[in-house]
């Protein structure tokens, strides 16, 4: 799994941090910070939840990478 985020379109809802704090954080302005581009296997499901929860759809997951 490989994760990408589109920071310019992030609306800083924090939904990703609530779903997957081991994968996502926010900078001081609240914009998404990707902590792990390829998360550990036990965090992959949380990352998928974060992708679906993001209200601005700025998280992309490549499952095959």
């Amino acid at each position, binding site marked *: 799994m490989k994760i990408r985020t*589109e920071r310019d*379109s992030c*609306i*800083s*809802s*924090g*939904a990703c*941090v*609530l779903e997957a704090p081991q994968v996502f954080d*926010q*900078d*001081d*302005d*609240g*914009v998404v910070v990707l902590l792990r581009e390829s998360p550990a296997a036990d965090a992959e499901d949380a990352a*998928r939840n974060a992708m*679906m*929860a*993001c*209200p*601005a*759809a*700025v998280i*992309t997951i490549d499952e095959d990478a």
Partner: protein
Amino acid sequence: MADPRHVLVVGGSAAGLSTAEALRRFGFDGALTVLEAEPGPPYDRPPLSKQVLDGSWAPERAALFPAGRLARIGFRHLTGVRAVALDRRRRVVRTDVAGDITYDELVIATGAAPRRLAGDRLPGVHVLRTMTDALRLRDDLLGGGRLLVVGAGFVGLEVAASARRLGVPVTVVDPDPCALAGRLGSAVAGRLLALHAGHGVDLRLGAGVRRITRSGGRPDGLDLTDGTHLEGAAVLVAIGCRPVVDWVAGNGLDAGDGVGCDPRCQAAPGIWAVGDVARWHHDGFGRSMRIEHRQHATEQAQAVARNILGAGLAFTPTPYFWTDHFDVRVQVAGFVPAGATLRPVEGDIVQGRFVARAEHGGRVTGVVAWNSAKAFTAHRRLVPAFAGAARRPTSGNEEQS
């Protein structure tokens, strides 16, 4: 319940497409169809009043999902096809150009449409719901002349901020002298309105609109109920939305204010509703609710998908929204009623950035943040959450099937 063979989602915006994606994510491998009345690729609505309107984004950038994400869902995507009637007995949705479509499970995701004023159907009078609406309004703003906004809600005020960014003079009218107080609390609402005034927005609160005046087939102003006449070159009517339920009429469904659903978001056996159009019973608050927030669409979509697949869970979210004005982002989790007492958690409510908790009736009802998104994430759990996933519904429709 065995997996349904064909799930038909009517409405292909955020709620509908998220339901389709969540169904696949949770293991549904039957046939899946999403019907959308608008032609063209799906787009997201929050940028319409902001980045699309002020031109900082090209329209394509407001695409609902990043490239490839839609394709990975694996579903039949019928765009430019409108549902016109529902036949519950035969489990059929009648469409305008694609004939009758049968289903095993139906998801109603037809959203909401702007409320209108009498006599507002003429060029130069706008509503804002669709991409077409946004681009048409933008064209008018670029033409110059004062914009008259009817309704000091979030859409009206976000548009006012975008118009000011384009250098367009703006007047905002609302009959409520305490506009937004019921959504943000009096103090934050007052500060947001002051922010607008400081950016040159002419706020006329406390008087309603009697009529739109016109000359040469275009609007040229507003007559207010207090006798005032305002001059302007374009009008935006932003007085809220009504759920789109006309096509399900006459089926015995409760469709008074959206499609009425049980705590699992089920309207009737084999029929579900999601997003702006869904009014479901929130077991946590103990009452029916209909929520038009963007975040709500994705959350409810996941609940509906799980429940279609048999989870049987009550949906008990804590509502969340954000709204952007000039250089300020306001975020709210839960509710901040007009009479709430705001207690700062970080910062100062009167100036600068802050996070505050709202207390009402002896309880914390919400958390509100002003340009404090990171701190907001840390503190939003101050709003008591409902143990939704562990909860069994207090009532349901499943037993009738």
